């Protein structure tokens, strides 16, 4: 039963990942800690492992439809990987709660900027 629920969780997060273009870690980690009682550290590690094949399938499917800017993806991948290493070092020196709250504020601000304006026309 637990295994079935795990697969179902994967399916739901996978759909969100494919639509939104995110790996799904931000959804997987709370699902694992709150829903399955997995420790924060193992949840983070396991979610990163699960993100890899999920993103590969999503990215290949998007690429087939011409929705991947390959050059930009390459440069962002280099930047994001370097950022992840830096982030891990910073995370070691700051309490998790502070980081999470700062990230929350940043997300809310970015969401307000992202919301489409009435007059705005989005270039293809």
């Amino acid at each position, binding site marked *: 039963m637990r295994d079935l629920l795990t*697969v179902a969780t994967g399916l739901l997060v996978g759909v969100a990942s494919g639509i939104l273009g995110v790996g799904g870690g931000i959804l997987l980690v709370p699902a694992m800690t709150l829903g399955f009682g997995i420790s924060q550290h193992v949840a983070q590690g396991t979610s990163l492992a699960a993100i*890899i094949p999920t993103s590969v399938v*999503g990215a290949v499917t998007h690429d087939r439809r011409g*929705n991947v800017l*390959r050059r930009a993806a390459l440069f*962002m991948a280099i930047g994001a990987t370097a950022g992840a290493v830096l982030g891990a070092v910073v995370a070691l020196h700051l309490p*998790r709660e502070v980081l999470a709250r700062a990230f929350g504020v940043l997300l809310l601000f970015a969401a307000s900027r992202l919301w489409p304006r009435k007059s705005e026309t989005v270039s293809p």
Partner: protein
Amino acid sequence: MGGGFALVPLQVLFARVDQHHANGTSLAAIIPGALVGALVYYFGSARPQVDLRFAALLVLGSMVGAYLGARLMTRIPDRPLRMAFAVTMVLVGLKELVAP
């Protein structure tokens, strides 16, 4: 975290990329970071911090889900797609603020 929640808004807000390309590109860009992260969690401490069995079960569902989601995305117009992303950001942002 792979970083998709940072990469998508960065592309849309600063590089003026449309939402569809931003989402597709972000998904490709997070792969190497997730790989490095997973390796660090697996080999970085005395005991592997990755539950491989749980990951395998998740992946069983999430690979199918990602394929369906990616196909579905192309049918959603730019504006509602952006709104869906913004709403998800608000929900995640509130969660991080209230229960970090």
